[in-house]
């Protein structure tokens, strides 16, 4: 019977193992690079908005508190997006009549709401609630980054499940005193773990149940 493989096939067989490993590594590498890149995660990518609203200007520049606009963040799952009325409270006077405010003005005159583009968007099969986090000492900047330094709003974290769980399995690494929740410049102290453990106790955070699937997928 004729030989199926020529002698050179031995060489090929050996090297093909190496090539296969290299090839798989390359494919996995490229795939995960794409998966973790801003193109897919949208981290750091700002969205086109009807009005170039700047948190830097309003929070750092004008010293507004987050709750001035996101009124329901402490009391409900939804943080709240300000009504046109809220913008008009100041912009009926400040910079009134400037062209960039046309969408605000049109919305105010017609009663048609402004359509802001969502920046942070969880899939609909995930349940999230702002009030529980804010009332247990998880600060805005832990999840949203330095919003006060953003000219246009962008997403600061991937919001992947692994990202939520990294905190849910050890909240003491991130938790801060409640009166610092709205402080954008808060940095963990050098003894964060120790402080964090105390706060977890003080705020009755039920660490044991935070990894249950049904907390987030209800």
């Amino acid at each position: 019977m004729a030989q199926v493989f020529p002698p050179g096939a031995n060489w090929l067989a050996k090297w093909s193992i190496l090539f296969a490993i290299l090839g798989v590594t390359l494919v996995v590498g490229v795939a995960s690079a794409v998966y973790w890149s801003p193109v897919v995660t949208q981290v750091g990518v700002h969205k086109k908005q009807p009005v170039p609203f700047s948190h830097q200007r309003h929070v750092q520049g004008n010293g507004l508190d987050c709750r001035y606009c996101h009124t329901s963040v402490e009391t409900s799952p939804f943080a709240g997006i300000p009504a046109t009325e809220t913008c008009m409270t100041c912009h009926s006077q400040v910079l009134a009549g400037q062209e960039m405010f046309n969408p605000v003005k049109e919305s105010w005159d017609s009663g048609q709401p402004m359509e802001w583009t969502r920046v942070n968007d969880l899939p609909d099969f995930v349940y999230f609630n702002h009030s529980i986090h804010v009332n247990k000492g998880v600060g805005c900047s832990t999840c949203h980054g330095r919003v006060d330094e953003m000219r246009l709003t962008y997403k600061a974290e991937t919001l992947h499940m692994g990202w939520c769980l990294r905190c849910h399995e050890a909240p003491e690494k991130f938790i801060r005193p409640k009166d610092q929740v709205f402080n954008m410049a808060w940095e963990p102290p050098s003894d964060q773990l120790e402080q964090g453990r105390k706060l977890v106790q003080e705020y009755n955070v039920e660490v044991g149940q935070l990894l249950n699937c049904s907390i987030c997928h209800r």
Partner: protein
Amino acid sequence: MNYEIASRTRGPKHAALCAACLVALSGCHWDMWNNARYKPLEPTTFFADNATARTVPPGIVPYYDTESKVLSVASTEPPLTDTHYFQGKVEGAFAKTLPASVPLNRALIERGQRQFEIYCIPCHGKLGDGQGMITTRGFPNPPSYHIDRLRQVELGYFVDVMTNGFGRMYSYASRVKPEDRWAIASYIRVLQLSQNATPELLPADVLEQAKNPQPAAAEAHEGPQSNEHD
């Protein structure tokens, strides 16, 4: 030999498997990501104004039960008979006192301070002197709380201004809850006192310390009365 045959027959099987995978992949869809439900404020094409959050029709008011503190949707028969609580008015005149459902205590004043510093200081300033940040950016200065006219108005007057707006100030009814309006009004009284206090109002021991300041004792008396000076 066997191997060759086997691989030939496996070929089509593999192809079928790959095809099935491709079909399965193309079957991936996003309807778990975007369920047929709306997140708060998500737009819709169903209503003419594209909003899922509906505006309350004219003539209909939110129903707020002061006893259970529950805000329910809307009722055609407004149980807003409690004008004292909701509008700061008793029989048409500005109320002089807090409504019965809002007890005066330290928690109320502290709540008032917190809410004041969120919603009011951009224009009125931390001391209520009408020198807020926004006034340096082209917003006209509101009057100071420390003028005679505002020292003499009744408590309900401030609640009325927050509820209905005044001059260039828009209504804050959609942002500040009725209960918080009373808390803020009470805190305004604290501010007014803070700018017009006489030494006799201090407790005797504090007065003694103020006369003979000792650095260590200075921090012993903290509270809303001393906080607002910072």
